[in-house]
């Protein structure tokens, strides 16, 4: 056995635990008492701080704002309308005159892309709102009341989950003329279940919490408990779901339009532009790449924002760094 009793200088080198070990401790081992040196911070204020420090989320937010501004304002700078047919200028590549080039009918692609983007964004936002509202309400009722209400709503959720979304949209798209609102409603009808499940699960979790029991023992009615106590704790997760649903909606919409359904020409969405461009992949790939890229950018931006929201609203311990 080595003799280590001789005085040796205290080892001041900093060691880190060997990598790859599973963290065996939870943050509860470290105390969390806060000294009141800062002003009171509501949960919302803290969440905003966390969101601000999430770089990708900020990037996504900026990107989205730029895209929206572009979609709505940029066409004002062009002298063309989205449906200006000008056969003489057809099938041109990008130029100073037509910034994105023209399509087979000589329509300016830049303006059409911007208009398409407008539709895509508005459909996704409306879809997100409807899906969140419906899903949130049904999920809340199912989670809070349980029993037969829960059983019924859960059956409905499962029913909707078994419906193949694209197939249904195809059929309905063929049968009916769809404007953007009907489209949004239809897509929402197919994606709301995710939000419902999330809200239901959270409700089940929170309704047994002691602060809810405390409100009950003070005499609170069910509606007060749902509105004042449960929804604020659930709203964060619902918001995250809504953003992600919006992203899904765009892809669904683009797919539909690509298949020739939904919104009809001369109106245009990004999906329609992709559809119209599929014939010229070899000759002018830009025609398909541009609307495709725009879809990608929008969905990326939305997903980054969703990530940021999730981290901001679902606080993992600060000490995890």
């Amino acid at each position, binding site marked *: 056995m080595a003799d*280590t009793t001789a005085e040796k200088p205290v*080892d001041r080198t*900093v*060691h*880190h*635990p*060997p990598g790859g070990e599973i963290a*065996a401790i939870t943050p509860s081992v470290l*105390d969390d*008492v806060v000294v009141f040196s800062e002003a009171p911070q509501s949960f919302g204020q803290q969440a905003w701080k966390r969101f601000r420090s999430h770089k990708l989320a900020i990037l996504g937010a900026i990107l989205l704002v730029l895209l929206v501004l572009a979609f709505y304002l940029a066409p004002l700078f062009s002298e063309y309308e989205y449906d200006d047919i000008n056969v003489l200028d057809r099938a041109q590549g990008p130029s100073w005159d037509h910034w994105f080039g023209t399509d087979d009918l000589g329509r300016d692609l830049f303006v059409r892309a911007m208009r398409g983007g407008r539709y895509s964004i508005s459909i996704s936002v409306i879809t997100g709102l409807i899906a969140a509202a419906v899903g949130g309400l049904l999920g809340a009722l199912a989670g809070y009341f349980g029993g037969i209400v829960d059983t019924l709503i859960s059956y409905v959720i499962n029913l909707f989950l078994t419906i193949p979304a694209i197939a249904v949209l195809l059929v309905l798209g063929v049968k009916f003329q769809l404007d953007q609102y009907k489209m949004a409603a239809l897509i929402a009808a197919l994606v709301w279940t995710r939000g419902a499940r999330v809200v239901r699960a959270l409700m089940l979790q929170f309704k047994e919490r002691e602060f809810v029991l405390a409100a009950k023992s003070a005499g609170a009615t069910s509606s007060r408990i749902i509105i004042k106590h449960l929804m604020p704790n659930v709203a964060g997760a619902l918001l995250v779901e809504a953003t992600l649903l919006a992203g899904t909606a765009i892809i669904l919409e683009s797919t539909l339009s690509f298949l020739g359904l939904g919104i009809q020409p001369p109106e245009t969405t990004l999906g329609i532009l992709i559809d119209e461009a599929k014939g010229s992949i070899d000759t002018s790939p830009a025609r398909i790449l541009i609307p495709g890229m725009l879809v990608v950018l929008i969905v990326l931006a939305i997903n980054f924002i969703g990530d940021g929201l999730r981290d901001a609203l679902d606080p993992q311990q600060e000490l995890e760094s």
Partner: protein
Amino acid sequence: MSEPLLRVTDLSVGFRAKGKPLAKAVRELSFDVQRGETLAVVGESGSGKSVSALAMLGLLPGTAEITGSAIFDGADLVGMKSKELRTYRGRRIAMIFQDPMTAFHPAFTIGNQIAETILVHGLDDKEGAHRQAADLLEMVGVPEPGIRVDQYPHEFSGGMRQRAMVAMAIANKPDLLIADEPTTALDVTIQAQVMEVLAEMQREVDAAMILITHDLGVVANVADRVQVMYGGRIVERSVVDNVFYRPRNPYTRGLLTSLPRLDGARTDRLEPIKGSPPSILSMPAGCAFEPRCPHATDVCKERPAELESLWLEHESRCHHHAELPDWGTPVTDEVNA
């Protein structure tokens, strides 16, 4: 004096949260553990008692910063490579955790998991290891060990799981057992069982034990020596009788007087320690206990005291340990037992 089994010197553990300065959970901790003895480490949340043990065994997240040394039988555990540490963990040093529910993997049988620790550390015979696992379960008093050895953790009750954890810990006859709050999650009557088993097994394999707990009753029951921690430092250390009957540190005294006692006289009022334990994120610059101490003076605010030796085997970290009033032993009524 023989060579200590474990010698910890100036162990410090810090955590760095994003954008914040280093938060030290353990500050320059030094202590020895002799072979075969039971050292109790007493403290509340934030005292650093658990973190120090986890740091020695390399069980903290990679972001923890550890300085100092923990020399176990000649080798320094701090800074040891993963591969080498693994030869110590489970074989020469075994740890028993607080929560028996999460200490076992739910998808493997108890026998499997105990056998694994035997196989990993040398024995090559699967069937032999399985048999040993059943024997170990019998030793720790799990009924029907032959059947239980093939059951899954969820089929065990909390107390039985804790016994199984003890079995797993002693499987390779370790030199040192570290028990981190082994009874906190258990019911009182089960606590008594598990402590009995733990003490018995410790004797059986002749191991030393570091018992980390906040329960002074358990300490009085099993400890040879006690060290009391507060704010990441040792504030008092001695043989068990001294700490309970002749404490010379205001925090230790505060702990003892604030306990409602089953054996004490029916006093009308408890004497709590005012204030709350400090957070590691905002430690006072001077003595960590000063904001709550009834004997504090200005010097206590300026700097923390050194750990001084009062007489043989009794140390206290306090500027005023010599001026503390006399300590009367609480009246001891008989407890029905």
